[in-house]
């Protein structure tokens, strides 16, 4: 097989400029969706009226539709919407902001589910113990329950990150100059498509593996107090008030 190696080196050099763009999209989406995901997960767990329906609907919608459809909707609706609000300036917006929006919206849905199941793995006894040493429910949540939930969520957060990295390769549709976009232009210019995409493939592999290593290290660092979760009692630890859920109980 005759690959044009000179061209591949050239693409490698140009496409590397897209790496920060890809990373930026992933990081911004993660950072913004993280707290919102926790909030949404809590809304689901505590079955907040109306809101929980909204969150459920949102998660199902995002999970059930291709990211490409989400991109096309946001990229077609948002500019004209902004145009109505801020006028012509809307068309001068750097498209990367649209990418931030799409991927954040997408990550929120995934992380909501991730945090929901993670919070449910924390035993309700942890909340009770916090209350009985005199801490407020809120204090117990922040200091005891959330840290434990986050650590048990790490593998799934890693998965979400991987999906984000891979999905970000579609940012070129919004004319964001990420790795894929650069490779595409180079390829079309020289008509060496395969070479260009092979190079990009390697870049994505490197980025994904790097992310996996980071999460592996995080997991190992935090695993010092992980034990196999023996008995999880679902989300019964929920007493934000003294009102107790009428769920599982033991008596003797």
């Amino acid at each position, binding site marked *: 097989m005759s690959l044009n190696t000179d061209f591949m080196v050239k693409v490698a050099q140009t496409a590397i400029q897209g790496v920060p763009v890809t990373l930026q999209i992933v990081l911004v989406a993660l950072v913004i969706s993280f707290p919102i995901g926790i909030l949404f997960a809590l809304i689901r767990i505590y079955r907040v009226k109306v809101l929980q329906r909204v969150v459920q609907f949102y998660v199902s919608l995002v999970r059930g539709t291709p990211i490409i459809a989400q991109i096309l909707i946001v990229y077609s609706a948002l500019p004209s919407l902004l145009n109505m609000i801020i006028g012509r300036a809307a068309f001068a917006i750097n498209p990367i902001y649209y990418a931030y929006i799409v991927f954040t919206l997408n990550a929120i849905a995934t992380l909501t589910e991730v945090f929901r199941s993670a919070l449910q793995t924390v*035993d309700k006894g942890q909340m009770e113990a916090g209350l009985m040493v005199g801490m407020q429910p809120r204090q117990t949540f922040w200091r005891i329950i959330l840290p434990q939930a986050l650590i048990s969520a790490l593998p799934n957060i890693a998965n979400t990150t991987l999906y984000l990295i891979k999905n970000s390769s579609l940012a070129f549709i919004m004319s964001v100059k990420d790795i894929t976009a650069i490779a595409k232009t180079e390829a079309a210019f020289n008509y060496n498509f395969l070479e260009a995409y092979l190079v990009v493939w390697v870049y994505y592999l490197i980025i994904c593996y790097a992310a996996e290593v980071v999460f592996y290290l995080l997991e190992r660092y935090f695993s010092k107090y992980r*034990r196999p979760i023996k008995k999880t009692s679902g989300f019964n630890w929920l007493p934000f008030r003294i009102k107790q859920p009428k769920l599982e109980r033991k008596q*003797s």
Partner: protein
Amino acid sequence: MLTIEGLKKSYAGNDILKGISIDVNKGDVISIIGPSGSGKTTLLRTMTTLEEADGGHITFSGIDKDFEKLTGKEVNTIRRNVGFVFQNYNLFNNKTALQNITEGLIVARKVKKSEAEKIALKALERVGLTDRKNHYPSQLSGGQQQRVGIARAIALNPEVIFFDEPTSALDPELVGEVLKVMQDLASSGTTMVVVTHQMSFARDVSNRVIFMADGHIVEQGAPKAIFEKPSEQRTKKFLTDILANV
């Protein structure tokens, strides 16, 4: 010091507690015994506001009120003045033994960190676990975890400590070390209310035994009286059954 009157609790139409009244005096070591399903654990959990009572009155640390009318603040007051030792230990999994004890002191009582650590170390010493202070719960045996649980309760210097079947989740060979710690506490004058299946503890350590069945207090009195001359038929039957199995 702590008085409960007419405490009621039901789940989904089942009455678990049918009007319980208890008086706890300073220095009391009260054992609550009774068959499974008699409401012992529920009694402890409702008394300490871990579960909402459906009726009843509490007199404790300046509060003199019906359970339903307790404000959030009063609930906090109650929780701050009691200690609770759980059946499943419920140590904070993400904190070391020492941090498990300091957490409540620092966060809830606003004790300075250095001061809290001093108190925590003293508490760990009382349960004989000073050398395990930097271990996480997952690195401790069940008996050790429960001793940390007890240290966590005593460090807060509560007026009364509740024990909810503190040894029933333990392997038989680990029961002794926990009972020993509890015995030491009792002899040092700590006020304790203990739900237990350990008849030896009820008989030898406590100064009052309460026998519960079907959400009622059937009989209470000095251990000698209960164990040797129970006046109720139910108590007699329970004791013969349980002692036959020892």
